[in-house]
């Protein structure tokens, strides 16, 4: 196909460019011809130059450009002089709340006017044209291919790739470790996850010299039973250094004070592993706040329907049944933090979570206690 067009070009009578009588357009058309382009249709947009219609179109485009300039000026003026600093609560009457809208509107419309100007110019003032250009699809000519093949073969033979297999093999042998060496520095990123998923801030041995860890609120206040009313809940953290910060991402826990009837239901449903350690205290129960699905805080506590909802993927947990999942994509219950009240009347965690809190991970051990439920 490309051969066909090539020959077609050669057959065409090329104009003699040295002919002084050639018009500019004829020279131009010769250029098109050399690029395999043929004019199907080409006429000025306005048959007679300088008509009223043409002048009108020119005025419209010029007007759009001038409007664009005006808006750009307004943008610069507003950018510099419009009050912009945030000064506390503000209503729509305060000019600083209009800073972003004003500069956005002026810049946006400056760009839009210029755009419409250019587009109108292209659509309404450029000549009406239709051209057709040949594609040269489907690879190079046979000759070109043959030349390229010979060239590559010559290069290969010059290097002796076929004659010197030992060299090639040794180079490949060296390239493998060399490639490894190139990516090896990335290995600096590797860090042993160790027990980061299984040990939380409630681990007394690691974070509190073996003393049971108390429960605290975010502001550091230690939690007593009288601080949560029935039907209420608070978020608690281990009362250790930085216990309420992101350093202990699996520690946040929801302490819920159940109403008597709900607490009775929970006691009835309690998993054996939690019965064994006496995990709930009175009508108080503490569940890990970190969803067992992918780790958002499952903290939407519904005190009538006794559900905990995770807002990220809508997993729902039954508060009066060990926070077992009842809806959504979560597969495991929210681990319960075993709690009791110490001599001074503060809540303490009697141990870390019995099962790892938070989302599952590949090497998460399947604990026999979980299957007992």
């Amino acid at each position: 196909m490309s051969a066909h067009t090539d020959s077609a070009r050669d057959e065409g009578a090329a104009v003699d460019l040295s002919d002084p009588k050639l018009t500019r357009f004829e020279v131009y058309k010769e250029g098109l011809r050399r690029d395999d382009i043929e004019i199907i249709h080409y006429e000025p947009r306005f048959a007679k130059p300088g008509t009223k219609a043409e002048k009108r179109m020119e005025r419209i485009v010029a007007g759009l450009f001038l409007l664009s300039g005006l808006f750009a000026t307004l943008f610069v003026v507003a950018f510099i002089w419009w009050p912009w600093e945030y000064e506390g609560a503000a209503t729509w009457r305060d000019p600083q709340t209009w800073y972003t809208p004003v500069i956005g509107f002026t810049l946006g419309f400056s760009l839009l006017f210029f755009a419409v100007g250019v587009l109108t110019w292209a659509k309404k003032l450029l000549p009406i044209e239709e051209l057709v250009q040949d594609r040269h699809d489907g690879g190079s000519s046979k000759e070109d291919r043959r030349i390229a093949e010979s060239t590559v073969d010559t290069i290969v033979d010059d290097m002796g790739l076929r004659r010197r297999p030992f060299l090639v093999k040794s180079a490949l042998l060296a390239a493998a470790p060399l490639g490894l060496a190139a990516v090896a520095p990335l290995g600096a990123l590797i860090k042993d996850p160790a027990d980061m998923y299984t040990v939380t801030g409630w681990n007394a041995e690691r974070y509190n010299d073996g003393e049971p860890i108390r429960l605290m609120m975010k502001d550091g206040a230690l939690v007593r039973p009288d601080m949560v009313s029935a039907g209420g809940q608070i978020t608690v953290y281990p009362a250790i250094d930085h216990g309420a910060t992101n350093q202990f991402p699996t520690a946040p826990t929801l302490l819920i004070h159940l109403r008597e009837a709900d607490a009775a239901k929970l006691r009835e449903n309690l998993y054996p592993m939690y019965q064994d350690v006496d995990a709930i205290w009175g009508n108080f129960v503490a569940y890990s706040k970190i969803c067992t699905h992918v780790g958002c805080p499952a903290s939407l506590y519904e005190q009538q329907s006794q559900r905990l909802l995770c807002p990220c993927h809508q997993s729902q947990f039954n508060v009066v049944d060990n926070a077992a999942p009842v809806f959504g994509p979560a597969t495991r219950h929210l681990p319960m933090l075993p709690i009791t009240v110490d001599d001074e009347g503060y809540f303490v965690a009697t141990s870390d979570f019995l099962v790892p809190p938070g989302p599952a991970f590949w090497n998460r051990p399947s604990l026999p206690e979980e299957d007992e439920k």
Partner: protein
Amino acid sequence: MAASAKRRRGWRKRLGALARFTGALVIVGGLYSVFSPSLYAQEAEDNAIDSEVVKGQELYDTSCISCHGDDGEGIEGRGPSLIGVGSAAVEFQVNTGRMPMAAQGAQAPDSDYPVFTEEEAAWLGAYIEYLGGGATVPDDLEALVENANVGEGGDLYRVNCGSCHGYAGGGGALSSGAHAPALTGVSDEEIYQAMLTGPQNMPVFADNELTPEQKADIIAYVQYIVNDDRDPGGVFTLGRYGPSTEGLAIFLVGMTALLLTTLWIAGKS
């Protein structure tokens, strides 16, 4: 016929209740006057409170009794007991139009047209409080909110409230058809009452969990972000729902405008 008979029976029942109640008042009042004669001076005020209780009971017996039962004892499966919920809870539910509920459902929706006036709600509140005490809104709430710390309030809001009501107070869905309402246009009292009493699925934030000062901080924060401050980022806030409406906007506004433009630039050939 049947309806009017029912109505007459209702009347009789209500008159009976009123008579019993007045009788009880007379006895209590009599005993009271016998044992504390020195407090005669306060009698007029007590009467005023009592009459609020009476009026509240009247309203209760017409509009609430069918679900919450005689003397607010509650009816299993229809309405919870109201003994001990206090006047704050009643006023919150009634003034926001949540109660009386039009139909049993997962959620008592709020309404712009509450059935009772604020005065009537206060009477109802007085009656429920008479039945079993309960939580009340402090009188100096306005001053508390005035002196509140907005930043502290924001911190508390994000830990305790934002999970259901959303970062921007736009509300959020709960399980099975329930939802946490948006906080736009709510009064300080309503927020306080809601925190104090934990209406419907909302957990209770009594004074031992959040002190009145902390509650005032939260109120100040909510009013700041929801009602007082105008967002600086534009004319349209897209409901502040986050990425879902932003995604809609880029298709409905941005892409649509540009697709129309492509049609104008190139035509359909």
